């Protein structure tokens, strides 16, 4: 029973990160109808930037900020310099170009930092705090929850309460009409990529210390899990991404806790297939949005 409780909290903490990463995927999907297969690599690149700053200054928080800013910039560059020029008539080309980006980014990281795992520190202890004698959550887990919650709230406010959010939604749904109404649609698209990339970077920052460490491929499996989470929730739905992330996090935690961690990739595949074949639109898909 204790183990179950522990795995549940561990799963929720993992799930929070997956939710953030899935949310980043959803952001770009909604803005550009692209599943950004390069998001893992982009996030790792931002995390490496943070690592460099942390090593140079000795401050985790400076590195943290640098990674987020780096994430924003990487998003801008990727959209402006690459994705803007891709032929959008076939989804194949977008996926393939994103995969090309994955190779380039991972190779460049390997050349600069080497292909070894680098230790990634945490600002808070990862030792679980106990209630009674049941170990539940570490301070770091609480930090993860807080950070993800803050991002969720921030994004929700941005999209529903601000005029920039209104512009971003309008550009995504009806680019031509938005231009006629004076909205800088290209700029909104870039902004969407930047935000998504920064959220992805945050997820990478949060998850990497809980795994083997910093590595060009550190986000490969996380990407697949987050993609599954996004699909579970429906690629169109931000709340769906959050619920999907928590669900996938829990399932993976139980699977790796009871069956062994090497089974998780297989579990992700099975879960993904099951959701896609049973409910292809995801659990939270909004059908109205597709009528226009």
């Amino acid at each position: 029973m204790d183990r179950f409780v522990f795995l549940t909290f561990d799963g929720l903490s993992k799930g929070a990160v997956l939710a953030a990463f899935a949310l980043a995927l959803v952001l770009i999907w909604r803005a550009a109808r692209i599943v950004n297969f390069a998001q893992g690599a982009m996030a790792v690149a931002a995390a490496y930037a943070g690592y460099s700053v942390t090593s140079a200054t000795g401050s985790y928080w400076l590195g943290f900020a640098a990674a987020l800013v780096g994430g924003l910039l990487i998003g801008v560059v990727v959209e402006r310099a690459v994705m803007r020029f891709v032929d959008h008539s076939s989804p194949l080309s977008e996926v393939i170009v994103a995969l090309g980006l994955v190779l380039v980014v991972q190779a460049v990281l390997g050349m600069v930092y080497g292909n070894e795992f680098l230790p990634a520190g945490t600002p808070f202890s990862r030792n679980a705090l106990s209630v009674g004698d049941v170990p539940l959550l570490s301070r770091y887990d609480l930090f993860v929850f807080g950070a993800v919650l803050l991002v969720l709230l921030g994004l929700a406010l941005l999209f529903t309460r601000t005029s920039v959010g209104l512009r971003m939604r309008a550009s995504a749904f009806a680019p031509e009409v938005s231009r006629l109404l004076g909205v800088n649609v290209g700029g909104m698209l870039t902004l969407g990529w930047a935000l998504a990339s920064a959220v992805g970077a945050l997820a990478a920052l949060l998850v990497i210390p809980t795994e083997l460490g910093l590595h060009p491929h550190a986000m490969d499996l996380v990407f697949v899990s987050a993609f599954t989470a996004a699909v579970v929730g429906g690629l169109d739905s931000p709340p769906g991404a959050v619920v999907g992330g928590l669900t996938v996090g829990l399932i993976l935690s139980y699977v790796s806790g009871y069956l062994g961690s090497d089974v998780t990739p297989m579990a992700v595949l099975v879960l993904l297939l099951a959701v896609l074949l049973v409910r292809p639109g995801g659990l939270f898909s909004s059908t109205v949005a597709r009528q226009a």
Partner: protein
Amino acid sequence: MTADDVILQVKGLTAGYGAAPVLQEVDLTVRAGTIAAVLGANGAGKTTLLRTLSGLVRPSGGEIVYGGQPLRDVPVEQLVRRGMAHVPEGRGVVAELTVDENLRLGGLWRRDREDAAKALTEVYELFEPLAQRRRSAGHQLSGGERQMLALGRALVARPKLLLLDEPSLGLAPRVIAQIMALLRQLRDSTGLTVLLVEQNVRSALSVADEAVVMSLGRIVTATSADRLRDDEELRHAYLGF
């Protein structure tokens, strides 16, 4: 007619999609504070003309002079800042946004927040049904309500030139008459200029000052609306009734 009077002057405009041109050597002059009807059969190029004027289609030749300045390479999103508003064919209500959001979108670019808010209130006063459905999503509106929303959204920008593409499409005669009356009233009270593309020839000619008839991408006649309305021979030749 002085040069100041002319708000829009089109000379030798050629445009199209891909290789084949749709518009061929179109010449058009629209005076400020008038309503000009653009008539013609399906596929004549009326929509393409409006889309080229607002920059959605790149012209391959010719010149558009708006408010005394040539519009070469002015981005689409800048035109509304210069007072040109385009209500596209099919109305272009953003289905996923609410009525209120759609309307606010029309005034987001404006620096003068106060006047933008005032314009919004005026639109709600003008179109009662919209005021009652502020929180409804665009896709929940009826056709008439959508037309009001699209028109209202354009008016929030307080335009000088309004490009209207088939506002009567799918509407009841009474609603069409109301819209035409509104256009006339806006022209008279605010000096609004309207380029009105219509299939509904009678309604259009009832409000228009000038009329042009398009066929196969060319303007085949340009005259006063009264003359087209009253001269049976002319009407017969160009409009077929």
